[in-house]
């Protein structure tokens, strides 16, 4: 427990919290450009948050404490998740506390809470959204776990830091299993972050919406926290993706020298990833809700295949 480590941890925590909306903004901006609209600008999410924080909160009459409490838990979980991923540096003091399986667990925790909150008011849309969210979740979770397993089979470890170090700092090897895993991971990412083709964050069309249906009843600060945590979630997933499939440039524990490089690498990757995500969303169309299980099932299958291939070809 050296001070530099703690400092680095704090630095990363603040970093992720601040950067998260930016990534969201960047993705939306890219989408706007791709659909040749001018777009609201990269900073729009921040403006939204500020606006929401200034509004009066309106709570449904029969909202229980659980409903009010949930946004904070959500925010805490996502923040924790994002700050535990080696975004800029590995071997942070907190990283041994949590390995990939726990990470999946944290996401599940957040999901369960938001779904419960959605059911709390007892509106038709809320329960509908909760059901769909859980549907997506119970298929996405094992797929994500399998992706992690593939990586940890390679690095004989479930702690992200070790994974990153083995993948980044050993000589470069091509793992075909990782290829499968990466595809699966992207699909999971799309589903979990309520992106097209699984969900559309920017409509309130009751036939299709999942995430939006759950948070319909939230307003003002609660809504702000929810939005923010979904931004954090997106960031967390993206950085996990980097850690697994593009771990280059992440700094060793506690050497500040590597930090600027790491930051540069991070932002570069984020730019690329955001653009890629936007591209994906633009070229693909929203699918029927009934098709979602098939989509997720494919992801799950791919992940398991990756694992099997790892066993077949050996590590």
């Amino acid at each position, binding site marked *: 427990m050296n001070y530099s480590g703690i400092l680095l941890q704090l630095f990363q925590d603040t970093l992720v919290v601040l950067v998260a909306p930016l990534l969201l903004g960047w993705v939306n901006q890219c989408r706007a450009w791709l659909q040749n609209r001018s777009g609201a600008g990269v900073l729009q999410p921040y403006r939204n948050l500020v606006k929401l924080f200034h509004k*009066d909160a309106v709570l449904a009459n029969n909202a229980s404490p659980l409903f009010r409490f949930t946004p904070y838990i959500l925010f805490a979980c996502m923040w924790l998740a994002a700050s535990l991923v080696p975004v800029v540096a590995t071997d942070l003091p907190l990283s041994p506390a949590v390995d990939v399986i726990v990470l999946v667990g944290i996401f599940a925790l957040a999901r*369960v809470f938001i779904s419960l909150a959605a059911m709390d008011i007892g509106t038709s849309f809320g329960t509908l959204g909760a059901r769909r969210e859980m549907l997506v979740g119970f298929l996405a979770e094992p797929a994500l776990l399998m992706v992690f397993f593939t990586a940890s089979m390679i690095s004989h470890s479930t702690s992200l830091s070790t994974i990153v170090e083995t993948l980044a700092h050993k000589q470069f090897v091509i793992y075909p299993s990782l290829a499968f895993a990466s595809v699966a991971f992207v699909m999971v990412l799309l589903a979990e972050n309520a992106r097209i083709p699984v969900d559309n964050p920017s409509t309130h069309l009751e036939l299709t919406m999942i995430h939006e249906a759950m948070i319909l009843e939230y307003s003002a600060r609660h809504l702000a926290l929810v939005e923010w945590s979904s931004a954090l979630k997106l960031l967390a997933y993206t950085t996990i993706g980097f850690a697994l499939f593009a771990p280059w440039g992440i700094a060793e524990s506690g050497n500040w020298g590597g930090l600027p490089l790491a930051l540069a690498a991070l932002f570069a990757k984020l730019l690329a990833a955001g653009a890629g995500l936007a591209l994906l969303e633009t070229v693909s169309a929203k699918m029927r809700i009934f098709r979602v299980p098939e989509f997720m099932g494919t992801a799950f299958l791919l992940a398991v295949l990756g694992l099997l291939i790892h066993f077949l070809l050996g590590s």
Partner: protein
Amino acid sequence: MPASLPIDWVIGVIGYWLLIGLAGLVLQRTPRLITTLLFPAGALGALIMAIVALGALGQAPNIAVLPLGLPDLPFHLRLDSLSAFFLLLLGAAGIGISVYSAGYFRKMEGNTLGLLCFEYHVFLAAMALVFLADDAYLFMVAWETMALSSYFLVTTDHNVPEIRRAGFLYLLIAHVGAIAILMCFGVMQGGHGDYTFATMRQGHLTTFWASVTFLLALFGFGAKAGILPLHVWLPEAHPAAPSPVSALMSGIMLKTAIYGILRVTFDLLDMQLWWWGALALTLGLVTALFGVMFAAVQTDMKRLLAYSSIENIGIILVGIGLAIIFHAFHKDALAALALTATLYHALNHAFMKGLLFLGTGSVLHATGERNLGKLGGLIHRMPKLALLVLVGVLAIAGLPPLNGFVSEWLLLQAFLLSPGLPHPYLNMLIPIAAAALALAAALAGYVMVKFYGIIFLGQPREEKPGKQVHDIGIMERLGLTWLALGCILLGIFPVFFILHIDYVTQMLVGQTLGGTAAQTGWMWLTPIQPERASYSPLILFLIIIVGVVFTMQVVKKFYHGRLRRGPAWDCGFPEQTARMQDTAEGFGQPIRQIFELFFGIIREVPSPFDKKPHYHGETRDLFWDWCYVPIARFTEKLSALIGKLQHGRIHVYLLYSFVTLLALLAFIR
């Protein structure tokens, strides 16, 4: 002073329970006394049991012989680490359940209550004896007494035909299983009627007979544990029983079967073959997936929990399977890991499922409804209950930082560390198994959201006029709190408990986990090495707390905090009634759709022109049609055939004797 031996204490507690039971029969006139006195007294016994068992863990096995039983075979009792662990489970969970019962049975009338008190405590005592038995006869006696007492508990309300049917099914399957266990002991016995476990440990069997023994044990104990396809009694019997009884059965009694499997496989048999493990693993996975799938489509809250018990038993069996495989390949460290996960999950399940069943009991008491479709919004009426049940729900959904997650984490670690088994198929099987396990765990989350969301959240789906719903009483709250506390502590301080489980793994596979698990301090759970995998629930818990508090503070600081109440917005939908919420069927619909071919689905959908539209949907358990109905038909056919022999004509009867005589005479020539 010999009485200081732990085993004497345990025997004392058993006797004490039996006395309480008899007292219950005596005090039938005064039900108040039974609830206010006897059940708390039983809880006290459970407490002593738990403490003694905790102390006995890791001590040298101590033995007692009672002058009862068969002439050549007095009752042998033995308290070793394995028994001690399960006795601890029994005691710890029993405390909460007994305290709760003290409140729950308040309104029952005298003679039924006295009888119930008797059966209840006999049930407890029988389970304790099962863990303690050291010879086949005592084991079987305790085993069947357990089945019998629980049968009478299940049929407490025997005027309902369904309940009678459930009890019959339960006892029948239990009895057939018991006969299988009997045979398994028959194989292992030393001959000349020597049925002590001691001789069985000495005895050496050929591979074939060892396998026969294992399969018989798996069948026999599986019938009690509810392993596929012997699970059918479970979703019938658990809802039928009064809720504390369901809690006992699901939380503790199912574990006696696990205990039996472990005892026979690792202690009595002197060899383990890898394919036993593979078999157990596959069975466990199928059971787990099947259980959770069916749980997701249930509309009766206690049935839902019963199916979830099937799932958890499946998970436990998976752990046992892994342990057998590893042990068969002499990877004892991994075997210890898998076994620890198994035992830990057993302990967790006792707490979580006890908590949830008791919770449903309170809901039942308050609303008189078991059907999810008629519940809802109880979080406003019974906030305390809602909070306590929420803990159980999160725990059984396998979410960090609660206890359900710890055991699943350990189990997944065991899977991850498994490669390099000298058997290619196994290496293929194991990742798939891991995937299936992950799927089951994730589905458990779905199920639990359904369970909690539909019972406690939203608006009441059916208002019962004049039915005043009130929150739980003090005794109920105490019992539930104890169990909830258990869930939290087990979740946050796993290392402490694992250090105790080590004695068991040491005894069964000669390896421990704690040594490595606690290597970097009691806060960190590291199965093998810190850089391979580590998990610190406490820190996680603290961070989340800190995160929440910090966020709240910040928000409070920078935010004006104005708050208005209003009607729900719901996309500006004009008017909305409670009937518009998702029903239990609705919530289960996606699962029904995805796994359609596993369910026997019967639906009657009203036509648009119905005056009184009526929807009826039900999902049947296909195993009825696959195994049980055919067996029943076959038996009927056969008995019809044999019945023809009793023909009624005396000449035919004479002919039988005549032919028999001639046949025998011809036979001896």
